[in-house]
C-alpha cells in the first residue's frame, strides 16, 4: 500500500518527471487543461492524455515578466513554468475563462511560448435559458473536432462512451475512498488524500483506476485513529492544490479532516456522466449540474453556503476551514456570504488565505489554534 501512496505522492509533487517518463514510455501526446471545467473524457477518447494544469513546485521568478504579481498563485506559477520551459512535454493546451486572471493566461502563452496545439474554449456560466446548453454543446463539438485534428484519430460515440466509463469508474473509486475516510476519519491523512485525487488529474485514468483498486482494501485494513480529534471539513481552494504543509498543520493542531469541498478533492470527482447515445450531450449535462455549487459559474440561485453547511452537518463536523486563494475573485466575492451564514448557523469557520509562496506557517498555526479555542469554547 505504501508503494501506491508514495507513487501518488511522487506524481503529485513532481508531475514533470512522471509525465516526461509517461510520454517516453507510451509515445503519446499530453494535453494540459485549465482546471475545473474542461471535460477530460473527450481528450482521453482521442488517445491523448489530459492533465489538469497545476501550481508549480518553485517560486515564481521569470513568470513575473509576463504576469502581475497580484495574480493568483496558479496563474502566476503556471506561466512561470511555461516560461522556464518546464512544460515542454505538453503537446497542447486548452483554456477557458473561470475568472479574469484565467482569461489572461492563454494569450500570454500563445504570444510568448505557444505549444504545438492550442485551443481557447468559451464555456458558458450556468445561467437559465436554452441558449446556454446549446452553445455549450456547440463548444464541446468544436473541442472534439480540434482534438481529432491534433490526434489524427476519430472520436466515435463508442470511444467517447468508453472513456466516460473509465472516468466514471475513477470517480466511483475516489468516492469510495472518501466514504472510507468519512467512516473512519484519520485513517487517511489529508496530504495523502490530496495526493490520491491530484494524481488522478495527472495520470492515465486506467492506470490510476487499477492503483486505486489495489489501494482500497489495504486502506480498509488501516488501524482506526485513536484520540479525540476535532472533526472539520475543508472548503474552497478553487483551481489550485493546497499546500501539504498547511494540511499537516491542520492535523497537527488537533483536527481531523473528515470531508472536503475543494477542487483537488471531492469537487473533482463529483457527479458521474450518464451513458447514452449522445455522449457529448451527456458531458454537457454533467457540466450543467448545479452542485457542488461553483462560484465561477454565475449560478445565483443555488447557494454554495447551503452546500457547505450540509457538508458540515452530514459529517458531524465541528467547523469548516476555508482555503481562500489570494487574489481569487470568485471566492473573494462569495466569502462575505459564507462568513455571514456560518455566523448565523453558529458553526465555527476559519479563513486561511493561501498564496503560492507560503509566507508564514506560524501565522497559520496561530489562526488554527485560535479556531480550535472557538470550537472548544462552543462545545
Amino acid at each position, binding site marked *: 500500500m505504501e508503494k501506491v501512496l508514495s507513487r501518488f505522492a511522487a506524481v503529485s509533487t513532481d508531475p514533470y518527471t512522471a509525465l516526461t517518463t509517461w510520454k517516453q514510455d507510451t509515445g503519446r501526446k499530453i494535453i494540459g487543461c485549465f482546471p475545473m471545467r474542461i471535460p477530460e473524457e473527450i481528450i482521453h477518447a482521442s488517445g491523448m492524455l489530459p492533465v489538469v494544469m497545476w501550481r508549480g513546485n518553485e517560486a515564481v521568478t521569470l513568470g513575473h*515578466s*509576463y*504576469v*502581475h504579481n*497580484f*495574480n493568483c498563485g496558479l496563474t502566476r506559477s503556471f506561466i512561470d513554468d511555461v516560461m522556464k520551459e518546464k512544460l515542454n512535454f505538453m503537446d497542447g493546451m486548452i483554456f477557458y*475563462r*473561470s*475568472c*479574469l*486572471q484565467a*482569461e*489572461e493566461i*492563454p*494569450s*500570454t502563452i*500563445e*504570444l*510568448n511560448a505557444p505549444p504545438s496545439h492550442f485551443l*481557447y474554449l*468559451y464555456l*458558458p*456560466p450556468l*445561467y*437559465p*435559458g*436554452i*441558449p*446556454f446548453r*446549446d*452553445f455549450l454543446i*456547440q463548444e464541446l463539438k*468544436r473541442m472534439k473536432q480540434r482534438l481529432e485534428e491534433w490526434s489524427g484519430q476519430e472520436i466515435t460515440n463508442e470511444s467517447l462512451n468508453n472513456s466516460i466509463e473509465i472516468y466514471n469508474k475513477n470517480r466511483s473509486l475516489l468516492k469510495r475512498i472518501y466514504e472510507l475516510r468519512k467512516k473512519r476519519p484519520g485513517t487517511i491523512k489529508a496530504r495523502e488524500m490530496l495526493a490520491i485525487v491530484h494524481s488522478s488529474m495527472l495520470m492515465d485514468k486506467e492506470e490510476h483506476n487499477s492503483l486505486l483498486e489495489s489501494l482500497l482494501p489495504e486502506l480498509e485494513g488501516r488501524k482506526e485513529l485513536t484520540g479525540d480529534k476535532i472533526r472539520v471539513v475543508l472548503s474552497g481552494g478553487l483551481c489550485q492544490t493546497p499546500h501539504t504543509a498547511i494540511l499537516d498543520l491542520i492535523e497537527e493542531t488537533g483536527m481531523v479532516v473528515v470531508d472536503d469541498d475543494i477542487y483537488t478533492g471531492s469537487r473533482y470527482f463529483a457527479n458521474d456522466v450518464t451513458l447514452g447515445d449522445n455522449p457529448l450531450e451527456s458531458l454537457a449535462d454533467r457540466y450543467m449540474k448545479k452542485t457542488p455549487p461553483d*462560484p*465561477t459559474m*454565475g*449560478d*445565483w*440561485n443555488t*447557494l454554495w453556503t447551503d452546500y457547505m453547511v450540509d457538508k458540515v452537518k452530514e459529517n458531524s463536523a465541528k467547523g469548516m476551514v476555508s482555503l481562500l486563494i*489570494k*487574489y481569487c*475573485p*470568485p471566492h*473573494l*466575492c*462569495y*466569502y*462575505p*456570504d459564507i*462568513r*455571514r451564514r456560518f455566523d448565523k448557523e453558529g458553526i465555527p469557520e476559519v479563513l486561511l488565505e493561501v498564496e503560492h509562496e507560503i509566507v508564514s506557517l506560524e501565522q497559520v498555526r496561530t489562526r488554527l489554534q485560535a479556531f480550535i479555542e472557538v470550537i472548544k469554547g462552543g462545545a
Partner: protein
Amino acid sequence: MRQQFKINRLATTGLMGPMVDKHWEELRTAKERGEKVAWCSGVPFIFAYAMDMKCHFMAGYSAYCAGRKAAEQILEIAENTGELPDTCSYHRLHMGMAEAVKNGIPVKEDVILPIPDLMIAGRVCPEMSHYAEALYRKFGIEVVGIELMTPYQESDYSFLEPFVERQFKEVLIPKMEEVCGKPFNYDRMREILTVLKKVATIRNECLEYFKKVPSPWTLWDYGVSLAPVIYLMGKPETVPYYEKLKAELEDRAKNNISAISPEEKYRVFWDGWLPWGFLGQFARKITSYGANPISGRYPWEMFPRPDLIDPEGDPVRTFVKALYTGTMLGNNMAKPGLSLMDKIVPEYNIDGIIFFTAKSCRIWKGQMTMLNQMERRYGIPGITLEADMADGKMFSEAQIDTRLNAFFEVLEARKEKRRWI
C-alpha cells in the same frame, strides 16, 4: 527648474457635467415617479432604455461615484459589512451602496442609487456578475444573466454573435417584458441606435484630431466625453455636444493650438482604465512632463464601428454585430489589443505607453506581454503604474511618482531617436 506645462481646457467639455448629473438624478428619483429601475453591468442597458426603464451601468456609475469623491465612504461601508478588500472596487462600491440604501446608512446624496427591480448581469467579465449574484443572495434582488464572452480572437466573432443574439432574444427580452408588463419596444431600440450611430460617427471624426501633432485635445478630455457613446446612449442632446466638440477641435487644429501648452513634448498611449477617482491628480502628474495621452484601449472600445450599426434592420442583431465585429468587446484581450496598438502606435506618433494597472481589476489583459512586444516592435518604452480606478488604499503615490520620473527620463533620452516625426 523643470519647464512648466498646463492643459488648455476645451470649452465644450464643460457642458458634459450637467448632462451626466441629469442622468443620475433621473435614475435616483425614478421610483418617486413610479418608474421601473434596473442595474446593469456590461452593455445590455440599451434593452432597459428601450423599455423606458431607468437603468444604471456598473462601470459608468462607479466612475461617476469615484469622480464625485464618494468612493472612499461607500467602500468603507462595504468593508465594514464584510466585503474583502482584494475584490474589484466596483463590486465593493455596489455592495456598499446597496447596504447603505437598504439599511439607511447616510451617503453622499448625489450618488445614491435606488434599489432596482431587476439586475441585468451582462457578464463581460465574471466579476460583473459576482456583484449581481451577491446582491441576490443578500437582498433577494431579481437577476437575469447574459454571458458576453470577450472574444479571444477575431475569427471567433462568427460563432459568438449568434449565441449572444439568442440570449438577448430568448432570455433578456422576455425577462424585460415580464418585469415591465409590456411588449419589448423594438422601435425605441432603433431610435436609440440611430442617435448612437450619429454620435459615434462624429466622435470618430473627433478622434482623428488625436493624430495631429500637436494634438488639440487630450485623453482626459475624451474621458469626460465618453458618456454619450455609452450610458447616455440615445439622448438627443448628445449629438449637438459632439458637433460642438468637433467644431472646437477643428478650430484648434486650424490654428495649431496644442492641448498642452507651451508645447506637447510626448505623445502617450494610456492603457487600461482611466483612473476615475483620481483623474485630476493623474492628469496633473502626466501634464507636468509635457506629456499628452492621446489614445488607449479603453477609450477606443466605445462603439468604434458605427458604420456597422443598421438601425433600420433587426436592432438586436445589429447591436450584437457592433459589439463583436465592431470590436467593442475585444480590445481588453491581448491579441485584439495588440492589433489595435499596431495600428495606433505608428498612426498616432506614440512615444511611450503607460499601462495603468488596476490592482482590483484584471480586465485589461496582456499588459506585460504588450509592454515587451511594443518595445521589440517599435522601440517604444512602457511602464506599468499599479494603482486602482477607485480605491485609493490600493496604491502609493510616491511609488507612482518614482515610476513616472524614470519613464519620462527614458523618453527624454530617446527623443533623438523618435521615429515618427
